[in-house]
């Protein structure tokens, strides 16, 4: 049956009159923007006037002045004579360090638990359900306190550290271990590592092409060889860089252990706390994603004789990802923002550094604004990256 074409809509009046909807809409929008600008400028001018009368100094000039305080842990060497902006960078890098690793670990743990929630094994299913319910229903701050006090109570004292291996120490100062010292020669290693990774990827895609032609696929063998390529190329890079070999080894002194690399209890607490807490949410996202795939897909996979693991990997996850990725993005954002609870357990993240700077300089508005700006840009960046990924996993109209 033919559907009769709809009559064309009546021509909308574009006259500058109150009768015209678009004109009224325009006026309302202009009014709203005006009110908003007025309100913001009133608040701003008031703030500045109040600050002037009370003799509170303002401005961002302090950013270049020396920070004058030390930071407990940092990815790169920080000296207190460097400016506040460097201190902020240290805080930002510490936030990123915990957020990125946390996101990876929470995704792995959350996916496993989400799949576990659908397991046929009652014990696995029950344990995963308990994990999800507990982690999602206890406030994160309390969980962090729990992990921190468990850690500071249970670890051996700083004076008498536990030595699981030679030159590896575990104590309330965290894990201290030998670490190769950075020298310019290590750039060779870095280049080697990167080109090794690229080579691995080429090798893997070659194996896929082979599979498409011949139907032969050995994922374990392919990736073992890939790993071998990576290690070999890295080693070549290291040799090309002059084989730098200085290692900083932690040494026990009279009162504690100094030198080497270390992972502090504060970092571990925050990492474990954020990972466990977020994994509960991610597990639910993954579970709902898998359950959104039509049951017929499962039946079809079984009918083809696919084992459960292959069914998950080849049939269900690729379809579930379309549902999973958007809510997963907001969990990643949550994890990054939740890392601002770091100061409660003594980890020098962005907020912690920001509040120290605030107190040293007294520039409350400026310091808080910078911290807010940092989180905003981090979140927008994460969203943008995840949106790109989202577009890749969506069904493509060809």
């Amino acid at each position, binding site marked *: 049956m033919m559907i009769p074409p709809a009559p064309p809509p009546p021509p909308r009046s574009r006259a500058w009159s109150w009768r015209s909807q678009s004109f009224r809409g325009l006026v309302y929008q202009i009014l709203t923007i005006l009110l908003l600008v007025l309100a913001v400028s009133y*608040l*701003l*001018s*008031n*703030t500045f*006037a*109040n*600050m002037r*009368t*009370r*003799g*509170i*100094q303002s401005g961002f000039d302090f950013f270049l002045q020396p920070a*004058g*305080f*030390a*930071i*407990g*842990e940092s990815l790169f060497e920080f000296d*207190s004579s460097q400016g506040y902006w460097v201190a902020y960078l240290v805080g930002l890098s510490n936030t990123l360090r915990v957020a990125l690793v946390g996101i990876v670990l929470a995704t792995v743990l959350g996916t496993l638990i989400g799949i576990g929630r659908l397991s046929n094994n009652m014990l696995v299913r029950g344990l995963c359900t308990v994990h999800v319910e507990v982690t999602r229903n206890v406030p994160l*701050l*309390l969980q962090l*306190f729990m992990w921190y*006090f468990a850690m*500071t*109570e249970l670890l051996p*004292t*700083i*004076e008498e550290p536990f030595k699981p291996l030679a030159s590896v120490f575990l104590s*309330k*100062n965290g894990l201290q271990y030998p670490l190769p010292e950075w020298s310019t020669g290590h750039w060779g290693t870095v280049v080697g590592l990167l080109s090794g990774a690229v080579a691995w990827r080429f090798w893997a895609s070659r194996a896929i092409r082979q599979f498409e032609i011949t139907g032969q696929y050995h994922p374990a063998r392919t990736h073992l060889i890939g790993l071998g390529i990576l290690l070999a190329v890295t080693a070549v890079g290291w040799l090309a860089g002059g084989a730098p070999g200085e290692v900083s080894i932690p040494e026990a*002194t*009279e*009162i*504690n*252990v*100094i030198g080497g690399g270390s992972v*502090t*209890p*504060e970092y571990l607490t925050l990492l474990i706390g954020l990972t466990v807490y977020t994994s509960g949410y991610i597990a639910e996202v993954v579970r709902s994603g898998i359950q959104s795939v039509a049951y017929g897909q499962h039946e079809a996979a079984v009918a083809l004789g696919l084992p459960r693991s292959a069914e998950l990997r080849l049939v269900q996850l690729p379809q579930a990802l379309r549902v999973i990725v958007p809510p997963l993005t907001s969990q990643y954002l949550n994890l990054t923002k939740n890392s601002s609870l770091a*100061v*409660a*357990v*003594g980890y*020098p993240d962005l907020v*912690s550094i920001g*509040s*120290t700077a*605030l*107190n*040293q*300089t*007294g520039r*409350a*508005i400026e310091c*808080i604004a910078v911290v807010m700006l940092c989180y905003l840009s981090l979140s927008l960046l994460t969203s943008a990256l995840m949106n790109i990924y989202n577009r890749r996993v969506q069904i493509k109209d060809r």
Partner: protein
Amino acid sequence: MKIVRSLIQRPLLAASLLALMGSVATPAFAGKTLDAIKSRGMLNCGVNPSLPGFAAADSQGNWTGLDVDVCKAVAATVLNDAAKVKWTPLNATQRFAVLQAGEIDILSRNTTWTLNRDASLGLHFTGTTYYDGQGFMVTKKSKITSAKSLKGATVCVQSGTTTEKNLNDYSKVNKLNIKPVVFDTQEATNKAYFAGRCQAYTTDASGLASVRNKEATNPDDHVILADLISKEPLGPSVRRGDDEFFAIVKWVVYALIEAEEYGITQANVDQMKSSTDPVVQRILGTSEDTGKLLGLDKEWAYRAIKAVGNYGEMFERNVGPKSTLKLPRGLNNQWNKGGLMYAPPVR
């Protein structure tokens, strides 16, 4: 309870920032604070949430301590009743913003007087009520005997204090490479130190004594090292732009110090009213009217002394021999007894 408190306190900072944005900008004129206090019948005072000896509340909600007494004395002077004080417990980071925003009239929270704070935070320090220095507390078991042996040590610090900078300066000069672990509340700092997370706890020596006394299962297990690494003159501060109220707080403190010098105590203040010593007469307002110059009445200092005693009594009761802290008088003695307490004359 402690967690709940720290959760409640967080919005305070944001609220004060909002207040700074929202409150109508008015030119500051003298006497505004005094009028506001009188009309609301309450003095708003910011104190440390929990530092026994300086400021702490008991189970009935009664506040005691050296910093607390300063506010009580001002309330007695201005409102004729030492009990008319609204206490606002503040952590180190919040304190200045809350004072700037006008939520409190006096900040009396073991706060170090520095150029930076005096010149750029919109406040004025009114004097020193306790001369202190930054020290270290370590466990007796550790092999640390002096601050110089803290090489590579982890040290627990509370955020938002002068302590962080002093620690860094000392660590740098002595090449100690000390690693600070910074917490946002004093409770968290205490817990971490007593759990053994840090090898040393650093803050003002008086604060260390207070923390050791209150939090340690056995106070004798902890030693406060003899080295002091900084000067920490602690005192109350008021908002800028109100010279009259600034003068009142300043002179109440001076009057309490001078009362000790001339032997006026809480117990004998009524008898002293009949004293013939012209200095005592001036302090207690039996001859000249010094109060009028401050916008107060004749008996302003009398009421302060009657409420909290002279400075020596305050010291003794809160932090000195009669208290659990048992801190020596040291620098805080009167100038003619080898200390630094020297009040300009009430004249």
